[in-house]
């Protein structure tokens, strides 16, 4: 196991905790983007470029966007 893989695993483990511990959904969406990137980095370290590419497009682009739209809906009416 290389140092790079260890580091990526540790970042992902901490990122998961941060995702859960961030209770404010808007900040959590930001976390989600970062977490997606961390996962993608881990997948590259595991020699899985196909998976990393989909994790980037899904985890860091599509899901955050849908989330922001959802939150805009929810917060927009709350105001």
């Amino acid at each position, binding site marked *: 196991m290389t140092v790079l893989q260890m580091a990526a695993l540790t970042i992902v483990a901490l990122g998961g905790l941060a995702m859960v511990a961030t209770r404010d959904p808007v900040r959590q969406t930001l976390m989600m983007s970062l977490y997606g990137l961390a996962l993608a980095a881990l997948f590259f370290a595991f020699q899985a470029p196909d998976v990393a590419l989909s994790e980037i*497009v899904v985890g860091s682009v599509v899901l955050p966007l849908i989330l922001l739209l*959802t939150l805009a809906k929810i917060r927009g009416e709350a105001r």
Partner: protein
Amino acid sequence: MFYMSALAFAAFFVWGMLRLPAFGYYQGPYGDVINSFVVFERHATDAVTAINFDYRGVDTVGEEFILFASVTGVALLLRERRDESASEERARVAEGRAGQTSSGVKVLALAVAAPSALYGWYIVSHGQLSPGGGFQGGVIMASAAIFLYVSGEYLALRHMNPISLLELADAAGAGGYVVVGLAGLIASGTFLLNVLPLGTTGEVDSSGTILAISIAVGLEVAAAFVLLMMEFLEQTLEIRQRRRV
């Protein structure tokens, strides 16, 4: 109660995982057999795409229909009793919003949209050669539509009344995959059998049905994600409109 159970669950899970082969010592045989045959048998150089669209193509049929069913479900859930007049109103709101986008952002976003659509197409059509494929490329193509929205041209998009068109594309992509499968069934009695010439390894038109399926999937995924985003977008426009009134 949760903490106790979660602890017990984690202990149980780890107890099983401790008997896994050590990290870095994958023992095969499945992946190794495929790695050694894929270039020879399928003229494809990306083993992951070859498995996805051929060796285990049936899984991907299911996967594409999960996407299709979810998007249909979202449309069913969010589109309830949405009448035409409200829709007109929303269009006006969208117009108002379009005016606010600064021209710098507009130019930049438009400048990004076209290349990202092209890049998405490249990823779709080169899936059998390099990392990527119908799914990843489809999402990138869908993101081109998002840039269009950022540029304030959502209205232009909306005037084309794209939803039914997108739904058609979505269904055509998902159905297209099944049609490719049925082509094999009709030709030789085997669902998803490759019926196209294999071509020269390393070229775009190599590897037969993989490319056809990749394009069908790309079409479906792009349409599905744009639809998904539009359904959510309509929801946010709804509130802006209400706040104006």
